[in-house]
C-alpha cells in the first residue's frame, strides 16, 4: 500500500471524501480549549522545504503539532549549483534522525517522487509542492473550502459543481492538482488562460479549456484565480501585465457577472492588481482567508490518515 501523498491522482474518490470528512472533524478542534489531539504522539514529522514558503510550512507545522507530533523544520537552499547533493544527503540525514513523515517542497518537479522511491528514506512522503508538477494538499484544502460552501459538507457534495481555474496554468502545480482532484470528486473544471499559458497536451486532461474569461464566469460555482508572475512577460507569455489583467484579471465588473452563491478563491500569495483586484480579494465572496484556516484542518487530516494507524488509510496499491 502507498505510504505517500505525491499527487492528487493518488486519491480515489473514497479517499478524497474521507479526507474531507476527517478534515471537517479536525476543524471543530479549533473551537475547543485544548486544540490538541494525541493521535500522532511520538511520531516525528519533518518539514523539508527547499523553497521559501512560510505560509505552507507553518500550516503543516501547526497541523502536526495539533496532532501531538514532534516537528523538525529543515529549510534547505537547493540551488542548481548544489544540485542533488542537497536532496539525497539531506534525506539520508533525516532517515538517521528517524522521521516518520517528510513533508517536502522543492523547486524540481518529481523531487518528492525521487525521495519516495529512491530508497534513501523509509518514511511517508507528503508532497507540499514540487516545481510545476503538483500540490495535492492545496487541492484538498481548496476542495474542502468549496465543499463547505457549495457541497453542504455532505458526501458527493461537489458532484456536478462547476469550477473555473484562471491564470498561469502552464507553470501552476495548484492547477494540475486541482484539475485532477476536482474531477475525482465529480466536479466539472474549466481552465481559463491565454493560449501561451496552457501546457502542451492539455486537451488530454479531464477538463474544459477556454481563452474567454467573460464567457466562463457566469456559469461557475467557484472561481479560483491563480498567481501570475509579472516576470512571465519576459518569456513572451503575454505582452504586458496591463494587457494580461485586462483580459484575464478578476475585477469588480467581472465579479458582478457571477451568480449569487459563487465563491472566489486564490491559493496565495496574490499579486493584487494583476490577476485579482483589491476589492474582489476583500469582498464577501472571497473565501481566501478561510482557505488558509482550512489548510491546517486538511493537513491534519492527511497526516492522521497517513500516519495515525499501522497503515495509511488512503492511497492506492503500491
Amino acid at each position, binding site marked *: 500500500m502507498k505510504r505517500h501523498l505525491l499527487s492528487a491522482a493518488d486519491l480515489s474518490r473514497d479517499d478524497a471524501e474521507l479526507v474531507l470528512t476527517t478534515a471537517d472533524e479536525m476543524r471543530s478542534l479549533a473551537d475547543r480549549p485544548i486544540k490538541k489531539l494525541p493521535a500522532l504522539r511520538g511520531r516525528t514529522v519533518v518539514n523539508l522545504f527547499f523553497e521559501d514558503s512560510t505560509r505552507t510550512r507553518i500550516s503543516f507545522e501547526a497541523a502536526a503539532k495539533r496532532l501531538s507530533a514532534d516537528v523538525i523544520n529543515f529549510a534547505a537552499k537547493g540551488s542548481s549549483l548544489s544540485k542533488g547533493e542537497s*536532496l539525497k544527503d539531506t534525506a539520508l540525514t533525516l532517515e538517521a534522525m528517524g522521521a516518520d513523515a517528510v513533508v517536502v517542497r522543492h523547486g524540481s518537479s518529481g523531487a518528492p517522487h525521487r525521495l519516495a522511491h529512491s530508497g534513501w528514506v523509509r518514511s511517508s512522503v507528503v508532497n507540499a509542492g514540487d516545481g510545476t508538477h503538483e500540490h495535492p494538499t492545496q487541492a484538498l484544502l481548496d476542495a474542502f473550502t468549496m465543499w463547505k460552501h457549495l457541497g453542504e459538507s455532505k458526501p458527493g457534495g461537489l458532484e456536478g459543481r462547476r469550477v473555473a481555474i484562471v491564470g498561469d496554468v502552464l507553470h501552476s502545480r495548484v492547477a494540475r492538482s486541482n484539475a485532477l482532484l476536482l474531477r475525482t470528486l465529480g466536479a466539472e473544471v474549466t481552465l481559463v488562460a491565454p493560449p501561451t499559458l496552457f501546457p*502542451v497536451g492539455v486537451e488530454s486532461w479531464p477538463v474544459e479549456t477556454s481563452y474567454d474569461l467573460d464567457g466562463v464566469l457566469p456559469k461557475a460555482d467557484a472561481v479560483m484565480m491563480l498567481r501570475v508572475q509579472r516576470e512571465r512577460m519576459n518569456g513572451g507569455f503575454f505582452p504586458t501585465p496591463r494587457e494580461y489583467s485586462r483580459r484575464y484579471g478578476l475585477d469588480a465588473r467581472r465579479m458582478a457577472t457571477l451568480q449569487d452563491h459563487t465563491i472566489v478563491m486564490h491559493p496565495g500569495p496574490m499579486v493584487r492588481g494583476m490577476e485579482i483586484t483589491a476589492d474582489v480579494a476583500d469582498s464577501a465572496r472571497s473565501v481566501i482567508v478561510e482557505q488558509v484556516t482550512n489548510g491546517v484542518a486538511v493537513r491534519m487530516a492527511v497526516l492522521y490518515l497517513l500516519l495515525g494507524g499501522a497503515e495509511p488509510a488512503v492511497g492506492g496499491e503500491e
Partner: protein
Amino acid sequence: MTSYLIKNASILGGAPTDLLLEEGVIAQVDTGLSAKDAEVVDASGLVALPGLVDLHTHLREPGREDAETVDSGTAAAALGGFTAVHAMANTDPVADTAGVVEQVWRLGREAGHCDVYPVGAVTVGLAGERLAELGAMADSAARVRVFSDDGKCVSDAVLMRRALEYVKAFDGVIAQHAQEPRLTEGAQMNEGELSGRLGLAGWPAVAEEAVIARDCLLAAHVGSRLHVCHVSTAGSVEIVRDAKARAAREGGWSVTAEVCPHHLLLTDELATTYDPIYKVNPPLRTSRDVEALRAGLADGTIDVVATDHAPHPHEDKDCEWAAAAFGMLGLETALSIVQETMVDPGLLDWAGVAERMSHAPARIGRVADHGRSLEAGQPANLVLYDPAVRRVVEASESASLSRNTPYAGMELPGRVMATFLRGRPTVLDGKLQ
C-alpha cells in the same frame, strides 16, 4: 605478431567461412583453411562484421576523468565491437586546438583498445562566437576530419555557413547537434502530453527539425558536406529524406545522419518514473518517432548508428530530474540494441548492420583503415558476434568508469565474443585482453 585462424564465421550472416589474419591484414578468406603457428578461434555460430566505427562518443578526457578516461572508454568500445571511435570535443579544455586533439589521439594509441579519431570543435570553447583553428586540427597528427560543437548547437546561421564552407578545403564535415537554444531553454524532456502532466519543461521537436532544415539549405547553398548528429524525431527523418533526394538531383553537396541506439528503443514514457537515468539530449521521444527512426535507418535515410556514449558519475544521476546531467552509456550495448530493434524484426540484415555501423561511419569520418570489407588484403579490423545468446545487462560489469546505462536489468540479445584491431585481439572470448 601472432596469426589468428578464425574458423566457421558467418561473414555478414553468410555461410560459415574461415579467415586467416596475418601481420595485421586479412590474408585469406575461404572455407577449409589451415595454418600452422596460427592461434585458432572457433567462430561457429558467430557473425563476423567489419570492426565497428563510432562517429559519436564522449571519452571525457581531458577534464572529466571521474566519469571516463580514454583508456576506460576505448575498453568499453572494444567490448562493444568497435575498432574506431570519434571522440567528441566537449572536454575540458575543449578540443579546439591541434594540441588537445593530438593529446587525445595519443592517449588512444597508448591505451591500444581501439583507434581514437578526435573530433575538433567548430567554435572556440564551444562558445558559438568564432571558428576554431579547424585547419590546424586537420593538419595535426590526429588528422581531424569531423568537426562538432556537440553538446551545443552552432545556432548562428552565419557561423554555420562559414564552417560548412571552410572545411571543404580539407574534405572535412561539420557534424551538427541540432537544438535551437531559445526554444529549448531549461528543457528537461520531450515536449508533449507527458511533459505537461509531469511538470517538466518541454524540448519541442521543432527545435531540432528547424535547425536541420536550415543546415541542409545552407549545405546545398555552399556545396558542402553536412552530418546531422543523433536524429530523434519523425519530422527530422522526413526533412533528411527530402534533403537527400534534392542532393541526389543536384549533386555537389550531401547530408548524412546518425541515430543513437536508445532512440531506437526507448520512449519518453520512461520519464514518468522521474528517474534521471532516462534523461538525455536530445530527449527520448514518442513511439511514433521510434517507428520513424527505425524505418529511416532501414531505408538508408539515416546512414549511421552512433552511440553518443555519455558517461556521468553517480552523483550526477542520483538526484532529482532537473538537477541531473543529460546522457546515457552506449558503447557496450549498441550492437545488441540494433539486433533487438532492427535485425531480429527483419528491418535490417547483417550486411546492413555492417554498412550502418562500419562502412558508412568510416566513409563520413574519412577513416581509411576501418569500415573496409572482410576480404583478403584488407586491414584485419573485425568483430565476432554471437547473436544467439541472451543476457541481462549488469551495470556493475561495464568497463566504463560510469554506470549510467538505461538498460540495467534488461535482457538483450547478443554478445561480442572477439574484436580484432589490425589483427590483434582487443577482446577474446568476450573478455578484454
